[in-house]
């Protein structure tokens, strides 16, 4: 028996350990169990509120009704009906919106992050436009590009381009003074410094911007459909809401969220692959990889 435990006020059964780390109840339960408990509790409360008649089903459908409709919409999507066509329209808007935002965002980001004229003259305008309520531009995009897919692509790209510009520019500024001095001392050219120092150093910031863009691009596409019509999922939601078919609205939103999740997951996976030296515990992909 050690001196410390001998001096202690009380000895535990094994006689040696008198004081141990107490593990909290929460950390002992696996993550998926606690998530499941929360979900079941939430759905139970929701069902209680609706079946007790506290809220009208026209305003808030019961979870049971939503799940039934979720199955219906799912079968409809799988059978390749008009719903699948609508989903595909929205998916195209999202993908093209993201591609356009990526191309413009990276170009502007390099202009702002790498050139002094870009930083001094262009950046203030980018910040100014970023502070504007961007959805207000939707009618303009419809007027310029019509009611087809391109006005939605434009709005989706417009909303999601800013985080990419900011992420790219901030990333190019991320290399510290020591690293810059080292590159200078080994005689690196500006292009070499950009390619071998600034771009790899800035990748984490770039991907942070890209993740924000991947989520907001879906909102942009749906907002475009709400405000400019078309044949996408946003139109289905609008029609269902107009018919007070709230279970349908909910199930459409849930299927739509898969699109956002898919975009976010894709960007996270790319970050995991390319920025292998900077894997944070917050990455969905890194958690899945464990």
């Amino acid at each position, binding site marked *: 028996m050690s001196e410390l435990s001998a001096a202690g006020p009380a000895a535990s059964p094994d006689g040696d350990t008198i004081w141990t780390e107490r593990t909290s109840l929460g950390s002992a339960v696996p993550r998926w169990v606690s998530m499941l408990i929360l979900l079941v509790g939430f759905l139970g409360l929701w069902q209680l509120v609706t079946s007790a008649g506290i809220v009208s089903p026209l305003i808030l459908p019961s979870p049971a009704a939503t799940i039934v409709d979720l199955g219906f919409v799912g079968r409809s999507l799988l059978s390749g009906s008009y719903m699948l066509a609508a989903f595909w329209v929205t998916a195209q808007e999202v993908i093209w919106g993201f591609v356009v935002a990526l191309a413009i965002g990276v170009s502007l980001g390099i202009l702002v992050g790498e050139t002094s004229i870009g930083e001094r003259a262009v950046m203030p305008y980018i910040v100014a436009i970023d502070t504007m309520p961007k959805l207000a531009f939707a009618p303009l995009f419809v007027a310029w590009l019509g009611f087809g897919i391109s006005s939605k692509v434009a709005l989706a790209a417009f909303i999601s381009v800013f985080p990419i510009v900011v992420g790219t520019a901030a990333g190019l500024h991320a290399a510290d003074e020591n690293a810059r001095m080292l590159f*200078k*001392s080994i*005689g690196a050219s500006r292009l070499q410094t950009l390619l071998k120092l600034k771009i790899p150093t800035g990748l984490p910031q770039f991907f942070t911007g890209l993740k924000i863009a991947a989520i907001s691009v879906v909102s942009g596409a749906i907002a475009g459909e709400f405000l400019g019509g078309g044949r996408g999922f946003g139109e289905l939601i609008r029609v269902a809401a107009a018919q007070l078919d709230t279970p349908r609205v909910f199930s459409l939103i849930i299927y739509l969220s898969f699109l956002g999740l898919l975009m976010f997951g894709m960007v996270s996976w790319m970050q995991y692959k390319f920025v292998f030296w900077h894997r944070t515990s917050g990455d969905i992909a890194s958690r899945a990889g464990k």
Partner: protein
Amino acid sequence: MSATITAGSELRPPIYELSNVSKHYGDRAVVALEGVDLKLRKGEFHSVIGSSGCGKSTLLKIMAGLTPPSKGRVILSGTPVMGARPDIGMMFQQATLFPWRTTLQNILLPIEIREGQAAADAARPRATALLELVGLKGFESSYPSQLSGGMAQRAAICRMLVSEPEVLLLDEPFSALDEITRDFMNMELQRICMERNATAFLVTHSISEAVILSDVVHVMSARPGRVVRTVEIDLPRPRALEMTTLPAFGEHVSTIRNLLDKGAFL
């Protein structure tokens, strides 16, 4: 023993020479350096010591060709220094290894930048030999996140040496390390410099570090930054940490401390 070193060095011409180097910022308003003269002979180890803001780092940048002096000139191996040169190796307080490169790729970076990927591939055996020299054999394909602070600075030593520079410029290379590691790394640095007969110039805040490593210590004062006194350290080589207890060591340290104290009140 010290006499022979000094006598021998008098015969050799300096390979690195600064004459009347000054640096002002903003239309002479701020004088960072004024009239600095330095002469380094092949194989000599010099240190510069001074309080913060005395222009040590500016001096080092000028010597490295990273910033031009306002006045005066720097000559290395007979040619003026005007821009970064492959015969100058530099090391900083931070190891600055890049996390996306393996240790070997980090070390080969100067070759890759100057001569291209093919030359870097060809220099692999040399880089591997350097890793062995600093005791990092077997860490070639490790990433910097797998190295400790001391190991990272060893890798930085290799990166400095890989292009076989004529002179080494060291900007407080081990000051971010803990004292035990730092002392050890200083002795490693001495061993490497002696093995390669390297000419080195060290910027430091530590008096004892300057004395234990150097043949010559330059004491700088601030505003304007100028060398107020040059102290020759006549301790025998190779130096060992035990020498810090010698009376001669203590005398050098107190001489330099007195100079620095006076400088601070000027």
